[in-house]
């Protein structure tokens, strides 16, 4: 797998402002992510976690400030930033096999008329192996369990041979086993030097399993090691009345936000929740 390992990326944002029509969803974010670091992005619903990712991959325009990757603006044909979308953004009924989806990760390196070659198939096979889904290669994505589906998209992202990997809410809608498997994978990717940003509602995982945390709410409230970020002051600033301090403990009410945000409550589920399928190995 080491031949898949690209140069570790230094990612920096300087006074970045991003927004949909008119009102900015994220203001004046300045942060620097060291080579090969793994950062959890946390914050309440609508804090701008997805907005940040969309700006990084060029889906939303950066309206002020700049994003630098390896000291240069990102972009270009073989874009080294890979993005694993939230599961509800994927059409699980689409007629594609696991192999088809992972091969899509190679399309950026292929010209408009070119068909994938032996080298591309080799990379795809390696990524399927890395995620332990090689035997599912010929299955349609709609037939898989939630955890398996997530691995397919992780394999696709790895097939892009990224320098930076963005995971949008990967712990939402998967079971404990799949979460642990993902964290194990992240640890392996750390050895390969891939810089990783993970957005999540899961504050506990962010605090315990990541070396760096960025707390957002329309702007960057705090960024650094978890103990420096998860202070009562910062949490109150981010969550307002949703944060409750009981003794030495913090309780954050993220349930039932009362508006359609990016919460867990409204997951679509046309996927068969398969107990009839092989579980993660």
């Amino acid at each position: 797998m080491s031949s898949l390992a690209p140069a570790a990326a230094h990612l920096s944002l300087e006074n970045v402002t991003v927004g949909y029509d008119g009102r900015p969803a994220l203001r004046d974010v300045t942060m620097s992510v060291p080579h090969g670091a793994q950062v959890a992005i946390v914050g309440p619903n609508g804090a701008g976690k997805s907005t940040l990712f969309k700006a990084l991959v060029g889906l939303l325009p950066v309206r002020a400030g700049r994003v630098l990757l390896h000291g240069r603006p990102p972009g270009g044909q073989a874009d080294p930033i890979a993005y694993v979308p939230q599961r509800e953004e994927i059409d699980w009924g689409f007629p594609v096999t696991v192999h088809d989806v992972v091969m899509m990760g190679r399309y950026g390196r292929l010209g408009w008329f070119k068909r994938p070659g032996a080298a591309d198939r080799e990379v795809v096979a390696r990524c399927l192996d890395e995620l332990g889904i090689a035997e599912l290669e010929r299955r349609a994505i709609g037939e898989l369990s939630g955890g398996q589906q997530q691995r397919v998209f992780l394999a696709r992202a790895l097939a892009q041979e990224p320098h930076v990997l963005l995971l949008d809410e990967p712990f939402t809608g998967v079971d404990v086993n799949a979460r642990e498997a993902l964290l194990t994978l992240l640890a392996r990717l750390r050895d390969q030097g891939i810089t990783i940003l993970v957005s999540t509602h899961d504050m506990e995982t962010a605090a315990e399993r990541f070396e760096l945390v960025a707390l957002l709410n329309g702007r960057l409230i705090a960024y650094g090691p978890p103990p420096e970020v998860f202070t009562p002051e910062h949490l109150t600033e981010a969550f307002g009345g949703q944060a409750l301090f009981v003794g030495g403990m913090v309780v954050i009410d993220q349930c039932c936000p009362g508006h359609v945000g990016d919460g867990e409550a409204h997951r679509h589920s046309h996927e068969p929740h398969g107990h009839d399928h092989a579980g993660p190995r």
Partner: protein
Amino acid sequence: MIAWLTDPFAFEFMQRALMASLIVGVLCSVIGTFVVLRAMAFLGDALAHAILPGVAVAYLLGANLLLGALVAAVLVAVGIGLFSRRGGVKEDTAIGILFAAALALGVLLMSTVRSYATDLTHILFGNVLGVSAGDLWLTGVLAVIVLTVLILFFKEFQLASFDPVLAHMLGKRPETLRFAMLILLALTIVVGLQTVGVVLVAAMLVTPAATAYLLTRRLAAMMVVSAVIGAFSSVAGLYASYYLDVASGAAVVLIATAAFLLAYVFAPRRGLVARRALRRAV
């Protein structure tokens, strides 16, 4: 039996009708896979009706009718894009407004020309038996163009349909591809006009592809199965039209619908029976 099969094609107009039906059946069914997967069924319908005023204007100006149809379809496609962009109104609302307006405009223009009544019926319902050698050539050339573009850019169309976000990130211009798909759709509808007519072309864009969706698990396979169903329905419809003396376009669509119903109930994985069995097993 053989005579029964070959008899109808002793006539030259029936041979042309067979060729035209096959081309339209295959073309509509193949491009229909994208219509079904990207939930553009309503859009296909709208484009089909949007052709009417184009045809009427072309007729009044004495220009080529197919060219008029094509221009109108492209204009409506652009109009839908403009109205719905950046949250003005929702896309299906924009489609609904333009679709009704284009249909009304078409009928209005046509009502100014009295002698046009029979031609109007032909445009609405098609007249596969009246296909001329010239029409057949034009149909064939347009079909080859559309299918070639789809095959050459299969990888890109697949990616942009399945995951426009990744397509954008990889520099594959999903907006351009979507517009290209609209143009291909407009060309296909113009091709289908002659054989099945405005009213039924939308059904040929959706029904065979929806049937194939139930039966396959890969896009390429879905396209092939859809094409086979479309071709079969077209030919079977033509026979029905010859022997039972019924309207050919309607027969084609009803045969395709019968195939869909069979697949809906009996498809191995996505069929009603299979899903029932699975639920019971769980």
